[in-house]
Every structure is written in structure tokens, then in C-alpha cells.
């Protein structure tokens, strides 16, 4: 992949404070936002001062992603001189050498090359390193003017026809800098067993300090100190996140496979707008989105450049393919209410027609056993229970950023596939019509942990349990969830909501509305299992991660069931 890119560096003044309604939860709770007095950690400061020396520095870590059998994307950002800050547009064009080796000491260089970067792409470096051996660990590093980056490791995917005994991946989403520490990433980085890190979106958040944090506490404020709306803002925000040592550590242990959800651009984004975008005041949506996408292309280790498509498919031998979806760029606008008749319009789309065909093709691939889908928003039908008390119902409404439905039994979140039921029915019908087995939707977005069957027929499911796939949902790394919104202690009031949701939706087998953390997924020919880990306190930089629960999908069953033990 060529790194030269006609990027545009824009340094407009900060945008006015945007209007945002649904997630103003701190205000609803009667408390104003405040910066928390949490001790700062190395790398956690919003703008690290570069040293006085004029040698290049690699301040944002290194990363890799999108492994193919013979290629992997390598990434870094070089700061040529002090002051050549992200988003500044300052700094010279420099050459950066990349090197890969099978050994950490780089005694023998397996692949190398030189890449030129400069302010046009914010001094980020992205290389598609090719002609690699399949299923192989490599170490990699960058060098610029005699300065060497940290060394990290990555792994190519197995050969397309390889027999693969095991694929193990971290599954994460929704990491709001202002809401806590990325200790989830740190705990994952300590593991030695990850082949891939799957990030399902909301890698960065667009908000200004005080707009969205940990309940009413800003654990650490965003930089720039405003909602990001222009290219320089998006670049600076990405750069800030990549100063986090835990994030850097996790990028360094395995290749990432990423997709965006809405907060990489703006809350509840759709093709022509977003809930958190005010046309005019915040510019035109398409322009703002292009800024977000350009920064994403520059700053993420992903095989994507502006003007291309983010949705793509990876394959891990005969064991699994992984279809990564973009459910923001092409979707129709969310309906205003879950009882809006427009919900059932036959041509409503969340994928767009081309991506829809792409998804169906991947699901129908009979040469691989498991069909994994990197699915930014939930596909499981979820009906709102009518047994919730008013406070809990309002809290769930806030969690999904939508008004509480007026009656029980209607979809509870029309920003998910529930808002596009005809298209979802086509996907599930495709699974059934084609006899497609072992499909797992891997999902983020909703700041809660779920394990669900995907019934083809909600009426007969309670009798026969027939399911055409499953969905496993990881919770948020830090972003607020139900107990945060209702301002309740964890695992107290939310338990009633969880019970009511499961009773009203018997295909939902596991639901944790409160915890923050991460998941680990293992896929083998005999089954898939997800372990959920929860953090003791997202605002504690030294928080522990505790195994919470595990669910398993025995191959061929299309059903989740409790797993007796966590993955070894």
C-alpha cells in the first residue's frame, strides 16, 4: 500500500459547542461534568511535550493489522522534530524504513522497505508488507534518521486452505478516553495467546470535555478540548488516544482488525448526517465525515484509504472467515420512534446494496466452517419489556440513545439492526435458505455484554429453539452503561432490567448491562467460546480484570450455551 496520500491539513478554529440531547446524562442526574482528580499516568496526558532534541521520535507507538496469508499492514507515526504535532500540518517530509524479522533481535531481516511521509498524511506511516509466509509471527520496527521505533510483533493469517486448530482473538469496543483508563487493553496485552485483536468500533469519541465521560466525572479530558469536527481535530484526537501506553501495548502484541462505528465521526451517524451533527454550524456532514475517514485511514492499521470501502473480508484457513462491516456510511436515517411505520419499509438499508451482497457472499462461503461477522451494532431482535419501572426504562432509553417506546414488545433500539428489520430478515433468511451453519455475529456498540441465539421465527422459538446463528456482544472498555446512567451501584438495579429483557426475549441467554471490560473469543472446529472479563473500576488505572462468564457455541448448533470454564 502506498503511503503517499493527498491528505488535506485543516486547522480551523474549534467548532462551537454542539447540541446533544440524549446522552446528557450527567445533567439529567443533577451533576455537572468535572475533571476527575485521578492521578495521571505516563502517556495519559492530553498533549505530551516532545523533548528538546531535534531527532525524530515515535511517540504514538507502532501497530499492525488486517493480516492476510502473505501480507500485513504495518503502522506508525513519526514526529520528525519537536513541535511537528499531529494535526499541526508542520514538519518536513521524511523517509522511514520499515523492517520485519522472524526474531526479536532482527538478526535476519525478512522484509524491509522505505516509505516517505509528511504533513500531508499527518506523518503517519502505513505499509502493506507483502510476500510474507502464512501463519507466521514476525517482529517489526521502523527507523528514521537513525532513530528506531519500539519493536512489536504481528502474525500473518494462515494459508487459505490450511487446517487451523484454533483462532483466538480479543474482542473490544467503545473506549471513551474521558470515561476511564484503558486497563482492558493492558490486561489483554499481557496475554500471549492472541492471534488477532478485533475492535468493533468507537475506538475514539468525538466529544468535548464534559460532554460524555464517566457518569459525571471526566477521568481525563479530550484533546483537542472541543468536539472534533474538522480534520485537525480528528487527527489530534486519534493521536491523543495513541499516546495511551495500554493502547500502544495492545497494538504491539498482535495485528488488529478494526471497523468504525459512529463515534469515529459523530454519534448515531448515517449516510447523510448524524444525531450529533448540526449542519451549518458544524459544516456539512459529508465534509465532516470525510475528515473523520481521512484521519481514520491515516491513524489506523487498516487496509483502507479515503474513497475506498472499509468493509472487507479476512480468512483464517478453512476454519473461519471474518467479514468486517461498515454500518454507518451507507445506512438510511434512523427512524424517530420504534413504532414509526417507516421501520418496515422494504427498501430500508443499514448496509447499502453493495455491502449487503458482500455480506451474503461471505456467509455463503462453504469452503470455511465459521462465518464470523465484525458487526458494529446488534443484529439480535430485542423487544422492549413492559415490566420495567419508569426509572429503569428511562435508563435503557438513554443507553441506546432513543426515547423509551410507548408500549412493550416493540424494538428497543432502532439504531441497531432492529431499525432495519426487513434487511435483517433477508440476512437471517439467507442463513436458513442456504443451510448456512456456524455463523457468529461479533458485536460492540451497546456497552453491555450479550450472548444470543438468532431465531428465524420468534413465535416458534420458545417451542423448538430453532436458531440460524448466534451473536456475541462485548461490553465497553470504558463507556457508560446502564448502572452509570441510572447512577446505581453495579449489579443492583440493572438486574431487574436484565431479567425482564431475557424473559421478554427468550433467545437472549446472557445479558450484563453494567460491566466494563473486554472479551476473548476462541474459535476451533468443534466450537466457539467467548469469555467476558470485567474491570473492577474503569476509573482506577490499576483496576483488575476478572473473568465474569463464558458462553460456548458448539459447532453446528447455532445456539449459545453456558461454558463450564473459561478458556485455558
Amino acid at each position, binding site marked *: 500500500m502506498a503511503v503517499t496520500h493527498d491528505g488535506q491539513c485543516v486547522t480551523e478554529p474549534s467548532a462551537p459547542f454542539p447540541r446533544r440531547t440524549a446522552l446528557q446524562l450527567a445533567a439529567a442526574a443533577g451533576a455537572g461534568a468535572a475533571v476527575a482528580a485521578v492521578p495521571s499516568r505516563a502517556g495519559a496526558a492530553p498533549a505530551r511535550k516532545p523533548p528538546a532534541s531535534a531527532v525524530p521520535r515515535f511517540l504514538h507507538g507502532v501497530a499492525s493489522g488486517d493480516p492476510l496469508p502473505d501480507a500485513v499492514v504495518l503502522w506508525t507515526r513519526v514526529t520528525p522534530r519537536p513541535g511537528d504535532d499531529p494535526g499541526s500540518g508542520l514538519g518536513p517530509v521524511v523517509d522511514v524504513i520499515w523492517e520485519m524479522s522472524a526474531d526479536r533481535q532482527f538478526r535476519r531481516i525478512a522484509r524491509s522497505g522505505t516509505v516517505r511521509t509528511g504533513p500531508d498524511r499527518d506523518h503517519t506511516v502505513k505499509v502493506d508488507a507483502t510476500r510474507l509466509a502464512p501463519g507466521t509471527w514476525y517482529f517489526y520496527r521502523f527507523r528514521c534518521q537513525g532513530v528506531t521505533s519500539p519493536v512489536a510483533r504481528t502474525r500473518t493469517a494462515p494459508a487459505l486452505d490450511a487446517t487451523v486448530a484454533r483462532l483466538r482473538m480479543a474482542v473490544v469496543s467503545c473506549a471513551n478516553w474521558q470515561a476511564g483508563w484503558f486497563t482492558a487493553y493492558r490486561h489483554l496485552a499481557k496475554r500471549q495467546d492472541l492471534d488477532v485483536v478485533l475492535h468493533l468500533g468507537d475506538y475514539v469519541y468525538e466529544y468535548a470535555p464534559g460532554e460524555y465521560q464517566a457518569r459525571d466525572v471526566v477521568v481525563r479530558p479530550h484533546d483537542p478540548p472541543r468536539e472534533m469536527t474538522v480534520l485537525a481535530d480528528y487527527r489530534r484526537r486519534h493521536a491523543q488516544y495513541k499516546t495511551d501506553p495500554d493502547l500502544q501495548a495492545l497494538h504491539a502484541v498482535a495485528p488488529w482488525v478494526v471497523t468504525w462505528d459512529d463515534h469515529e465521526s459523530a454519534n448515531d451517524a448515517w449516510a447523510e448526517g448524524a444525531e450529533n451533527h448540526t449542519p451549518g454550524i458544524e459544516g456539512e456532514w459529508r465534509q465532516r465525515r470525510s475528515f473523520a475517514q481521512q484521519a481514520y485511514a491515516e491513524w489506523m492499521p487498516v487496509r483502507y484509504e479515503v474513497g475506498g470501502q472499509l468493509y472487507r473480508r479476512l480468512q483464517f484457513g*478453512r*476454519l473461519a472467515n471474518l467479514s468486517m462491516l461498515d454500518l454507518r456510511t451507507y445506512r438510511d436515517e434512523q427512524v424517530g420512534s420504534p413504532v414509526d411505520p417507516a421501520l418496515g419499509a422494504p427498501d430500508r438499508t443499514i448496509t447499502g446494496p453493495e455491502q449487503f451482497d458482500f455480506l451474503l457472499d461471505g456467509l455463503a462461503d462453504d469452503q470455511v*466452517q465459521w462465518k464470523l461477522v465484525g458487526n458494529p451494532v446488534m443484529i439480535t431482535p430485542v423487544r422492549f419489556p413492559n415490566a420495567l419501572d419508569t426509572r429503569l426504562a428511562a435508563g435503557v432509553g438513554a443507553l441506546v440513545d432513543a426515547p423509551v417506546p410507548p408500549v412493550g414488545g416493540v424494538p428497543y433500539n432502532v439504531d441497531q439492526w432492529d431499525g432495519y428489520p426487513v434487511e435483517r430478515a433477508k440476512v437471517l433468511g439467507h442463513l436458513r435458505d442456504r443451510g448456512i451453519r*456456524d455463523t457468529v455475529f461479533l458485536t460492540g456498540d451497546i456497552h453491555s455484554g450479550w450472548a444470543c441465539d438468532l431465531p428465524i421465527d420468534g413465535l*416458534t422459538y420458545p*417451542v423448538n429453539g430453532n436458531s440460524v446463528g448466534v451473536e456475541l456482544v462485548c461490553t465497553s472498555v470504558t463507556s457508560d452503561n446502564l448502572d452509570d446512567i441510572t447512577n446505581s451501584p453495579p449489579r443492583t438495579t440493572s438486574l431487574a432490567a436484565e431479567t425482564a429483557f431475557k424473559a421478554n426475549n427468550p433467545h437472549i441467554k446472557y445479558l450484563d448491562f453494567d460491566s466494563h471490560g473486554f472479551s476473548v473469543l476462541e474459535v476451533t472446529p468443534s466450537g466457539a467460546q467467548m469469555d467476558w472479563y470485567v474491570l473492577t473500576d474503569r476509573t482506577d488505572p490499576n483496576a483488575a480484570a476478572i473473568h465474569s462468564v463464558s458462553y460456548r457455541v458448539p459447532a453446528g448448533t447455532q445456539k449459545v450455551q453456558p461454558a463450564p470454564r473459561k478458556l485455558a
Partner: protein
Amino acid sequence: MNPRTTVFDRRRFLQVGAAGGAAVVLSTAVGAQPALGAKRSDLRVYVLVADGANPAEVEPLLMPRLATLRREGTWFGNARSLPVMETIPNHVMMMTGVRPDRSGVPANSVFDRRENVVRDLDRPGDLRFPTVIERLNATGATTGTVLSKEYLFGIFGTRATYRWEPEPVLPVTGHAPDAFTMDAAIAMVDEFDPNLVFVNLGDIDRVGHSDLTGPVLQAARKAALASSDLQIGRFVDHLKATGRWKRSIVVVLADHSMDWSLVTNFVSVAQILSARPDLRDNVQIAQNGGADLLYWTGGTDRRDAALEEIRRLVLAHPGVLSVQRPDQLRLGAEAGDLVCFARAGWRFSDTTPVSNPIPGNHGHPATEPIPFLVSGGHPVVRRGVVGSEPARTLDVAPTVGALFGLGAPRGGYDGTARTSAFTRLPAR
């Protein structure tokens, strides 16, 4: 016990004892000798077809014996049937290892242009590719077929060294119950001990077809699954009790699975075309449950345009999943001009809406998933393994061939020898 022998035509009929004192009649080619004293490989391979089983049904509570075989062998978790997902073509693919465009057998039912009739492909001459059965016989090995369905007995004919003609055959279903089929398989093993025995167990399929609770519960079918599992267990127990287990490799798979439709959910192509006599009167339909094969019988000058119009009309029906050309599916000329597949929960009923009233059907893609395991007592069997490889029905012949050291047929196999199920190939 000495078999009672009658020579008739080019076959010998042998009446041998079976469990419970019943008699089983087996036939053999004139000149073929029982195993006693013959110089043959020690290896025994048994291919058992649980006709119509779904892989999800192989679980300890429902099918404990199959679940044990699965646990003690290699299970292919991504196994599928091939078009058209019907009994005859998939049994043929198992034994030939080639696609229907080479074997001449794309479906159960076809329109025979030469005879101008829709008929089953149940004649020995319908199968035009050498099977692994005949090819093994040519090496001096012996083979046996124990096929519960009359049309299977028909198409495989006298290819095997030893054959069992299904008996008693139930009216309507046209098959012998599994208990009798397994009696015959055991008797054949006891009497002739062929190197390869190919067994079809028809109960799961036949009960599934008629299970009125199919769309929701499949209650009757579950009973059939348990019963067939018992019969497979009987066979395994017999191999063990007679000291054969350690030289036995058992392949268990299905030819297709099953899908159920409500009585109202049928597609009749004849009905769809009823408003277009110019099309209806120039098309023959071979109904295959979840699939219809359409044959243009009109003038060649109108053929392409007419087929395109038929395709458009049929695709518009909500119960139709796809309409494809046979060459897209490697089905060959016998499959006609268009192949229509039903969606899950639908069936074809042609030429009239009452032609196919049964709830359980197959032939369409929803019925592709099949169980496929390799087990047995032979030391080369890899145990406790689950594989992701895309095993298919047409992989059976190459796998059996590899076990016996048989080379590929002329033109090669279309299937793949699933040798990952073995630690090594048996010594010859």
C-alpha cells in the same frame, strides 16, 4: 451355517440366517466366492448412510451411538451434500467421486427425452461412470451393497460382489425398515466379509418425509433417529463381538438432510406457467421435492427467450430461492435446462398442487448440511478430531480408494480423499 444357493441367470441367490432366525437373501455374481480362504486385504471399510440425517441431530441424547463414533473418530464439521440434494445422485457421488455431469445422475427424477417420460434414475445403465465398487472388485477385493431403497438397489444393480435386495419393502415408502437392512448388513459381513460394504438406512428419511410435526417439532423423526442410531450401534457391536473391529473403518454420513414446509407452502411451476400456455405446453417438469428440473421441449429458435421468461416468472414466487442453469451446478444434460430451488420451509409440487403433499422434503440448499464422520477400531483412525475441511458426499470414493491403494479413475476424482481422518494409510 452353509448358505442355501440358487443359480438364476447370471446371479446366485443365497439365503442366509439373520438375527432372530429370519432369513436374508443375498445375491452374488456367478463365480464369486465367499471370503473363506481368499487372499484379500485385511482392511474392512463400511460406509453407512443415515439417509436424511442432519448433523445437529448427532448428539448424545438423540443418537448416542453415532455421538460415540464421532467422539472416537474424526468429525467433519463443515460437511455438505451436493446438488441436487437428493438420494440417488448423492449415493452415486459417494461411490464414484465425480459430479453428475460425469456420472449422468443429477437427481432422483429426470425427464428422459429419449423415452419422453419423467422417471427415476433407477436403472444400472443410468450410471455411466465406474464406481469404486467395480474398481475395487477389479483388484481382487470384494464388495457388498445393502441398500434399503428400491431405486438405489436399481441403479447400483449388480455392481457389487454381493447384494441385498431390500425386503420387506414398505408400501408407499419403497424402502425396507432399518432393522431388516441391518440384519442384511450383518448377515453379509458374517457370510462373505466383503472389503467394502455400502449400506443405506432409509428410516430417518422416510419418517422425516411424512412427519406432520416437522415444521415445529419433528416428533416422529426424532423417534426414527433414535431407532437408526440403535441399528448402527448393533452393527458396531457385531463387528466388535466377532473380532472384526480392529480392522474396520466406519464412515457414517448422510446423503442430504431434511426441511419441512407447511401444507400451504408449495410452489407449482406448472401453476405459475398456467397463464402462459406457450411456455407451459413446451416444458416438462421433473419434481425433486425441494428442487424442480425444467426441460424445454419446444422449438430451439424460441428456447433462450422462453427459458429467460420462465426463469423470470418462477423467480417471482416467494417460495423460490434461485433458478440456475444445470452447468452452473455441474449437473449435466440429464438435468435439463433450468434448475429451480425452493427456499427453506417451501417445497415444489408439480405438476399439480397436490402432487407433493408431504411436509418433509430435500433437494434444496437448506438441506445441504450433513453429518460426516470417520471412525472404527482400525489403528489408523484419528480419534477425537473435529475438522473444518469442506467434506462432501463425493469425497467418499476418493477416501475409500486411498485406503485400498486404488488410483484415481480416468479423468481424476472431483472429490478429495479425506485422509486427515487417518494417522497414516493402512499398509497393503
